[in-house]
């Protein structure tokens, strides 16, 4: 069974063709209907058969047709944008500053801060919306729609645009929105008008096809590909985003590194050492104008961490001592990450002036002139249990609580690991005589074992203050692909919207000459063009009328 249709001009067309591929005659209309210009079918795809419109029995075809429909695509887009906006009403979990270590804490946070609304928000999963299976499905469906819509339409468009369609049937011209029968008579005048028009169109940049009685002048055909190039770009973009899901292509971590500390970079065999962190503020004279700011308020100019990146030559077993070789050194500032082998470290956060070490001087009251014996430095992150001072003295650390508080059962304990409120219980020993005394440093002061006349005293000095840098670790091998997709998409948009495909036909038949025109966008501009043509031919502007036929059609 053949699926073709024969036209009166002799050409056989595939089923579903609306305008004959060869001469442009509307195939599905009777002669009587043809007289009524209003009924001319849509010029979409030059009247070629669009496959999905013609088959719809099997499941495969039904699914295909579903995704190839623009209406469905628009619905998916609108659902996506509505849901995306709902996700912004309350802060997403990833942006909440408070650490939410498990589901219960998360739920408590949302219901505690936002009441019933927050609780419902949490229960519906809206607090983690953009990575949820259903939101991802929505976006994937946009992607699927992009692929199928494009595939479905690109082939008929290619076939339609492959050859310039000169179309010789008068019914074709009459059915165009721009149709001007010229008030020119006589064989000589007809020929002259034909030549004049051809010449003028050529000067306006049109390419001329055809000879004799049927001419096509065409401009900007390539802009028809714009939407498809745009869609291809978007598909490539989404493909890049999708492939990021492969673990090897994507790393995303956050680490805190104190000054002086070396920390492993998760997901890699690399380590990073924080040499120094500093914040620079704008100086008074760097302000362009008086800002009238409150006392002490400053504006930061630069956040910078100087780091060294090392590679672990060992197996990289968690917790094992690494064998480090230096591979890179440099600064990290906001907007300027440091990169090594595709891994980048970004400056994101900082904690400044945290206690790093306590500094004391040991004084022996029994020695002549209450002599200062020596310095005692207590590293608050890794204190040694014994510190030798001078020749004969030892300070032993008995207890250390980084963040001291009195527990519920009157037992001293720590709130956490960071030394926000250090308490150190020490015993100071004179090794020559084995005299020892206990003293505790707590809340900035001392508690002596020997309350009245302690033998040993510690004088406090400025503690070591250190900074800690919060760095983001990123690896994203798909970025070039994603960028490429975005650029292609832009090119497609520019092609499609800033140029249009204009065609002007000139046709001589039975002693009359007809001008017809079509454009895919900007009819106003085509009308203007036609008016200029009329002026050039010394004919009246009023001849130019763009008919409303196509507008009401639902295509």
């Amino acid at each position, binding site marked *: 069974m053949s699926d073709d249709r024969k036209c009166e001009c002799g050409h056989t067309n595939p089923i579903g063709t609306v305008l004959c591929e060869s001469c442009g005659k509307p195939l599905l209309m009777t002669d009587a209907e043809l007289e009524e210009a209003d009924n001319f079918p849509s010029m979409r795809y030059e009247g070629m058969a669009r496959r999905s419109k013609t088959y719809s029995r099997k499941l495969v075809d039904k*699914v295909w047709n579903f995704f190839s429909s623009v209406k469905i695509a628009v619905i998916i887009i609108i659902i996506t944008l509505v849901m995306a906006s709902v996700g912004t009403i309350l802060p997403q979990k990833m942006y909440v500053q408070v650490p939410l270590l*498990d589901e219960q804490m998360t739920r408590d946070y949302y219901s505690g801060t936002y009441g019933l609304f927050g609780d419902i928000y949490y229960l519906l999963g809206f607090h983690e919306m953009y990575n949820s299976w259903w939101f991802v499905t929505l976006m994937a*469906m946009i992607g699927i729609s992009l692929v199928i819509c494009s595939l479905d339409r690109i082939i008929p468009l290619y076939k339609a645009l492959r050859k310039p369609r000169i179309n010789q049937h008068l019914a074709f011209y009459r059915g165009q929105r721009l149709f001007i029968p010229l008030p020119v008579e006589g064989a000589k005048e007809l020929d002259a008008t034909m030549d004049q028009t051809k010449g003028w169109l050529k000067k306006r940049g049109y390419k001329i096809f055809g000879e004799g009685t049927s001419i096509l002048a065409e401009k900007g055909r390539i802009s028809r590909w714009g939407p498809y190039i745009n869609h291809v770009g978007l598909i490539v973009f989404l493909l890049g985003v999708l492939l990021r899901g*492969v673990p090897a292509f994507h790393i995303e971590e956050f680490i805190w590194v104190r000054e002086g500390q070396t920390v492993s970079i998760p997901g890699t065999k690399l380590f990073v050492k924080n040499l120094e962190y500093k914040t620079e503020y704008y100086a008074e004279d760097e302000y362009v104008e008086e800002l009238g700011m409150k006392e002490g308020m400053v504006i930061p100019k630069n956040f910078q961490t100087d780091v060294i990146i090392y590679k672990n030559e060992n197996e990289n077993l968690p*917790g094992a*001592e690494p064998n480090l070789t230096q591979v890179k050194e440099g600064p990290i500032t906001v907007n300027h990450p440091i990169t090594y082998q595709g891994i980048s470290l970004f400056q994101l956060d900082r904690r400044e002036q945290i206690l790093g070490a306590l500094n004391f001087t040991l004084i022996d009251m029994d020695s002549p002139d209450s002599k200062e014996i020596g310095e005692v430095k207590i590293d608050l992150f890794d204190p040694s249990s014994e510190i030798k001072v001078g020749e004969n003295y030892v300070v032993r650390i008995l*207890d250390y609580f*980084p963040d001291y508080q009195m527990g519920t059962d009157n037992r001293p304990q720590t709130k*956490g*690991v960071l030394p926000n409120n250090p308490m150190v219980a020490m015993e100071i020993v004179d090794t020559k005589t084995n005299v020892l005394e206990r003293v505790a440093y707590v809340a900035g002061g001392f508690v002596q074992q020997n309350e009245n006349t302690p033998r040993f005293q510690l004088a406090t000095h400025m503690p070591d203050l250190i900074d800690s840098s919060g760095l983001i670790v990123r690896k994203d091998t798909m970025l070039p692909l994603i960028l490429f997709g975005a650029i292609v998409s832009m090119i497609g948009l520019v092609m499609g919207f800033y140029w249009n495909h204009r065609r002007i036909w000139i046709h001589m038949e039975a002693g009359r000459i007809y001008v017809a025109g079509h454009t895919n966008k900007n009819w106003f501009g085509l009308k203007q063009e036609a008016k200029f043509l009329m002026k050039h031919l010394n004919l009246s502007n009023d001849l130019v009328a763009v008919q409303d036929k196509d507008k009401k059609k639902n295509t």
Partner: protein
Amino acid sequence: MGKEKRIYMRIGVLGILLIALVFAIYSSISKPGLLKVGDEAPNFSLKDREDKNVTLADLKGKTVILNFWGTWCEPCRNEMPALEKIYQKYKSDDVVVIGLNVGEAKLTAEQFIRQVEVTFPIWFDSRKEVTKRYSVGKMPTTYFIDKDGVIRVIKTGEMTERVMEQLLSETKQ
């Protein structure tokens, strides 16, 4: 294009798109590296109280109760006596409790250990690398690992002795 060819083409395209959809959903909900029951417990190497290097692999053949704790964590302190009891009870049965201290100075941890008076091995994860690898967030978290090194139970939160017994017997099966 022939009818059949067209259908095969469409099935092919839809099939690829379906795979892409499934992959997209899967990669958005799965957290690579997050350990779950049935995974092999990743090996690691830390220092023990005598400052010797010890690894998880050393314990292959034994059932391991890996307990992540910190001195600031009240529930961790509360379950220490129960952990010690379990340790003593099943020592001869090739069960070992390992207390993993999360990122604290040895000094702080040692003084805590002296207070709670536990005898099971304590290893020090001073750089928190193991804590990170085992995705430990809220504490205490305890991993029950069987003789072949497979994770059988991941428990977050304080355990009573009874719960420990129960989970241990599950692991030994």
